[in-house]
């Protein structure tokens, strides 16, 4: 210890001549730093109420609550996050996990209120002074995602490998690929709400992650008895609304469903699904048509102990799934796999039996306790332009049926297809394959009223059609078919600039100054299909209620004006497979309730 030690502390007196820190650097109100994690802000128009913020919040400070003025709709739960500042720790994980990027924190950090309840508020709905504040915590730049925004790429046959064959072009996921894709799911359930059949999508995806594919199959069959088929050709409304699609690519829900179905061998189905022994209840139900709705009805009724008989006009079951969808998208053995399981439950299928011709609906009504009709849309519609009565003008649906049945298909070197939907793409690609097989080259042009961006066909369908050598030239209205010496020369079209009038009615407008000629010796029309209800006799029609558009009115269980007659599928709702399946499931419950009134309140499969 030295003298220095005694005197050096007195240097502190030097501070006496300095201004104190509180004066040098006074506590003035200042905004938080640019990244400050202050109060919550939510863009409620972007938010879809997926609830991932609620899931990640480790303090359970976030609840999703209904909000006035926001309706529940497809892709939006109608709920919005409410934050409880009694629990929140401002970690901003809710911001980082937000699937739409609507949630953020502002750099505002002071808020005084007397009412403690005020600190539980719904950002974006309850107006706050900081709602306009731009600065504050936002999700850091790319490379910082809490889940993968990009899909696992599904392997396809290359265009040159597939353009002359009907082999299935989508290869399906491997175990690693499926688990990686399943890992992306945030389990929000927006998909379940949107799916017409309300499939337990997050649950079966979870089963994939847990590598419990038997459980996955059980979840699939809870709501969908045709997983192999839906796993390939479903219109996947679930993917359209998938919450991951807002900032990245939607989850491949369809391929994951296919993965579960593919991995379970059909001989194990009955054991896995616990359907080896079903107690019969002695009631008989007739089902007209073996399409998705008929098969779905039969499946769920069979599980409840009903004896079901399906009457099928054609020689094979599956309806539009078999006769409308080409084999390269949905191989026939996969259809057989789903249908053979349904048959194994005791469902009988009478082939080549057309109701209305071989047996009347009245007879069915008398012989059976109830009848379900799901006869679908099998009659092609015509544009009715000049020249469509020529023998070389065909309906897409008739040609597709011929291809499936193995009958000879009319073919020329140059073909024009009219239509912009998936069926138009199906027939284009099927005929292109046949042309490639027969002539070694593709000469097919597909045109539609709708422009490229409004075409109803799936985007990937259009891309793949082009990859296979066909020309897709949308945005043209067919005018007439030029015929010379009883031979078709081609199709004259005019540019179509508007499809609907101001009232929203279908009323295409064309620019007759901009004309085009598509050369071809054969024209295929694919502009939609109609229903064939010839099996309904006049007596029966009298009891049915039919609306202006020609659709039969049914109640929520698809029961028509005739109590024993249930009607569903494409002729009521759709057209697609998943609506048919959902209709069938609901109708099965309806039939059960109709036949066993007293069972009304008990839960149904």
């Amino acid at each position, binding site marked *: 210890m030295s003298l220095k030690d005694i005197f050096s502390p007195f240097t502190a007196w030097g501070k006496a001549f300095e201004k104190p820190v509180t004066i040098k650097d006074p506590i003035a109100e200042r905004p938080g730093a640019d*990244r400050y994690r202050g109060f919550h802000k939510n863009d409620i128009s972007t938010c879809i109420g997926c609830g991932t913020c609620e899931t*990640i919040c480790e303090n359970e400070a976030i609840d999703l609550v209904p909000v006035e003025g926001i309706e529940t709709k497809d892709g939006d739960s109608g709920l919005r996050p409410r934050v409880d500042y009694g629990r929140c720790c401002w970690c901003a*994980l809710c911001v980082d996990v937000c699937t739409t990027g609507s949630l953020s924190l502002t750099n505002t950090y002071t808020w005084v209120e007397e009412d403690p309840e005020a600190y539980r508020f719904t950002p974006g709905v309850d107006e706050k002074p900081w709602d306009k504040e731009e600065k504050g*915590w936002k999700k*850091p730049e790319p490379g910082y995602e809490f889940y*993968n925004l990009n899909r696992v790429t599904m392997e396809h046959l290359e265009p040159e490998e597939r353009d002359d064959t009907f082999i299935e072009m989508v290869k399906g996921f491997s175990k690693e690929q499926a688990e990686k894709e399943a*890992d992306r799911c945030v389990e929000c359930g927006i998909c379940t709400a949107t799916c017409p059949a309300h499939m337990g999508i997050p649950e079966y995806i979870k089963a994939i992650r847990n590598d419990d594919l038997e459980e996955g199959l059980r979840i699939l069959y809870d709501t969908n008895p045709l997983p192999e088929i839906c796993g390939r050709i479903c219109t996947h409304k679930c993917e359209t609304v998938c919450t991951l699609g807002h900032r990245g690519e939607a989850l491949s829900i369809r391929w994951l469903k296919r993965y579960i179905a593919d991995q379970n061998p059909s001989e194990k189905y009955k054991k896995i699904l616990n359907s080896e022994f079903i107690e019969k209840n002695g009631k008989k139900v007739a089902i007209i048509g073996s399409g998705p709705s008929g098969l779905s009805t039969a499946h769920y009724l069979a599980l409840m102990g009903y004896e079901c008989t399906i009457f099928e006009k054609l020689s094979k079951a599956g309806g539009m799934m078999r006769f409308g969808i080409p084999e390269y998208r949905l191989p026939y053995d996969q259809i057989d796999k789903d249908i053979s399981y349904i048959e194994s439950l005791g469902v009988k299928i009478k082939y080549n039996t057309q109701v209305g011709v071989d047996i009347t609906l009245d007879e069915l009504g008398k012989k059976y306790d109830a009848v379900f009709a799901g006869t679908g849309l099998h009659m092609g519609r015509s544009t009715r332009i000049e020249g469509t009565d020529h023998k070389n003008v065909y309906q897409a649906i008739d040609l597709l049926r011929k291809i499936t049945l193995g009958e000879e298909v009319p073919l020329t070197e140059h073909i024009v297809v009219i239509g912009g939907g998936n069926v138009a793409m199906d027939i284009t690609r099927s005929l292109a394959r046949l042309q490639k097989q027969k002539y070694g080259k593709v000469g097919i042009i597909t045109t539609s009223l709708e422009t490229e961006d409004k075409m109803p066909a799936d985007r990937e369908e259009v891309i793949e059609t082009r990859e296979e050598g066909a020309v897709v030239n949308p945005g043209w209205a067919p005018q007439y078919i030029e015929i010379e010496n009883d031979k078709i020369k081609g199709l004259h079209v005019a540019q179509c600039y508007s499809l609907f009038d101001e009232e929203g009615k279908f009323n295409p407008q064309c620019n007759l100054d901009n004309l085009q000629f598509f050369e071809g010796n054969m024209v295929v029309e694919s502009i939609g299909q109609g229903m064939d209800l010839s099996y309904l006799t006049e007596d029966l029609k009298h009891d049915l209620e039919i609306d202006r558009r020609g659709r039969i009115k049914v109640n929520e269980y698809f029961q028509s004006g005739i109590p024993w007659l249930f009607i569903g599928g494409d002729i009521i709702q759709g057209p697609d497979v998943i609506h048919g399946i959902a209709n069938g499931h609901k109708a099965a419950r309806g039939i059960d309730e109709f036949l066993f009134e007293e069972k009304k309140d008990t839960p149904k499969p």
Partner: protein
Amino acid sequence: MSNTIFDWKKDRSMFPEPDKDGKPVVELDSQKYIKVWQGPNHPGVTGNMALELTISGDEVMEAKTHVGYLHRGFEKLFERRRYMQCFPTSIRMCVPEPDINEYNLSRGTELLSGIEVPEMAGWLRMIALEMARLQVLLRTVPGQGGTIGLGLPAQWGLYYRELILDRFEELTGGRIYHMYILPGGVRGLLPDGFKKRLEDNLVKIEAFMKEVDRVVYSNAVFKKRTKGIGVVPPEWIDQYGATGPVARAAGYKRDVRKDYPYLYYDRLDFDYNVEHESDVFARFHVRRKDVDTTIDLLRQIMAKMPEKGELRAETPNVLHWKIPRGETLVRCESSRGEYLFYMVADGSIYPRRINLRGPSYTHGVVLLEKLLVNANISDVSSIMVSLATCPPEIER
């Protein structure tokens, strides 16, 4: 100047008769002793813990530490939280220096699931960890003077700590709870101009530390009150598992950053700060040198870190991040010593067990009870602060 006038002699300890083990027998009924509770709310106690002191006159005969005023069950809470949800909770296990919790938890999660963190994120983690160490030292170094009445520098230090907190605010979005290091990486790059502002702060802090040297370090009263007080015999270091400045003040070269290098500390140039007297002053001296080392390290990191890079490694979806069965041990050097996490994963989305072994448990519970015996009551808080106990870390 003679020491005899100010020297305080340990004489009361002659009164209690030692038993056959040599331990004094304190009979409260004899009225020679009184019980005094220091804490749980007492300015001389760091955080909420209590010292039950049995004193005779002004000499401590017996000391007992009582914890339990802060128990929030963090280790249990982790067992019901997803891996990604743990780090915002973990920081509350040591509020003054939260980043070490985030780092250990993130590193453990990464080790268990086999994830490598991008290089940039590693350097950013080091910046956060060293800044956290610096702001703690800015409290404890001048604060050591505060325990014996030299409160002024302790107040000044808080201002310089705020400067570092400003940097934390712009880097992490929070001043106290940074929540910056998370499994897979970190949550933000350095903002524009950050390095310059931090350098300005470091220059100011260096100037301030010179003032601390004049007012505290070379202060006759401070030396008088701290030298020879609270001596930890070097053999106790291994016996009780003391680490950090306590071990280094006893002559041990112990520093996790050098002994078991993590992140990129092996690329930095620094040395152990060692003293040998093992008293309160030696521990203060070690921490004083730690301030210089930390400032130097921050400069080295800023010079050596890459300009650009990835923030975060690709991890499984954090909402259902399952980690296969396994266990791991992660440690880092906190301002108080070795900070260690033992983590067990059971293959589910929740950790099976996360256990913290921090320095405060040995320093604050075991060593403190021993060091306080025969100490003057006015030195109690001085000894306690020199051991750097952090009660929330003891009862996590």
